[in-house]
């Protein structure tokens, strides 16, 4: 039976920003569904702590469109609604375009872009019927500024600082007006604001959370 608690679907909630968002939505009394390919210790811990209450995880590869659609349908049918979608799942891939494997380019587009669109489409069905809903896409500064070695990610939007060399991180921090990299909660808070009632008149906007690097 549908319950009053709102439902948030977060893609890639098994670690990093996605895991932070899962916890944040649960703290805000949402029911949360998330998907990833692997069951991390975070997911195992959440499943055990929640005993399936208000938390649902599915082993889904974002490249499998049918599986994505089936996951959304299952969540929507089971929980009765979908209020928030956060397209967070993403992969980073480094290398310059001329020497990159085509297979890797396709994978980046599939996971970072196509999966987000398929999820948005499937969730929008429920949102249309409810007459409300909120979709947040996690992008990257690379979507705004081009950098060498990230052509494909720039196109799909993603690059993961966590995978970067220390020297690279220091270089980015130096170029950032606030002088450091973001903490995960600083990014998650922006998502929680955009999906909250406080942002009820905000739509179609790009909110850049980057310490000023693209200013």
């Amino acid at each position, binding site marked *: 039976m549908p319950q009053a608690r709102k439902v948030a679907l977060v893609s890639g909630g098994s670690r990093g920003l996605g895991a932070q968002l899962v916890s944040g939505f649960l703290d805000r009394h949402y029911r949360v569904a998330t998907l990833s390919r692997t069951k991390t210790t975070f997911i195992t811990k959440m499943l055990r702590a929640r005993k399936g209450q208000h938390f649902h995880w599915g082993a889904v590869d974002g490249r499998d469109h049918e599986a994505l*659609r089936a996951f959304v349908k299952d969540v929507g049918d089971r929980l009765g609604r979908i209020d928030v979608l956060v397209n967070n799942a993403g992969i980073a891939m480094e290398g310059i375009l001329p020497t990159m494997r085509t297979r890797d380019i396709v994978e980046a587009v599939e996971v970072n872009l196509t999966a987000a669109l398929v999820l948005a489409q499937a969730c*929008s*069905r*429920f949102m*249309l*019927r409810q007459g409300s809903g909120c979709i947040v896409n996690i992008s990257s500064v690379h979507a705004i500024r081009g950098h060498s070695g990230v052509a494909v990610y720039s196109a799909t939007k993603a690059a993961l600082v966590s995978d970067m060399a220390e020297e690279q991180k220091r270089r980015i921090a130096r170029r950032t007006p606030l002088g450091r990299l973001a903490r995960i909660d600083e990014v998650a808070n922006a998502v929680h604001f955009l999906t909250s009632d406080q942002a009820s008149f905000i739509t179609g906007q790009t909110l850049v959370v980057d310490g000023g690097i693209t200013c």
Partner: protein
Amino acid sequence: MLTAPTLAQIESIVHGRIRAVLAERVGEVARLSGTDKLSATLGLSSLDLAFVVAELEAELGVDPFAKLVSITSVRSVGDLVRAYQQALFPELQRGGDEHAVAAAVKRAQTRRTRRKRR
């Protein structure tokens, strides 16, 4: 639906959903005709149509626009009705005659009844 819908039932369900949207936009509409253009005659927007499709997927359990049909080919009320009839009765796509369709409807209904009994 408790039993598999017949072709006429599908038509009436699709009409019902269109009428519900129109009732909100322009007020009650007495009758729909198959030749009424969804946009030009009735004034439905693409978002209205998406809403109707979402409602019909929930009610009929099928989405003809996921694979079978392109939404851009749907102009009239009749086009929309046919899209759902074809999705629920693939015999229609193969240009099956009325007997083949009637037989398919009957088979579907028998399946449902059997499933319910179990």
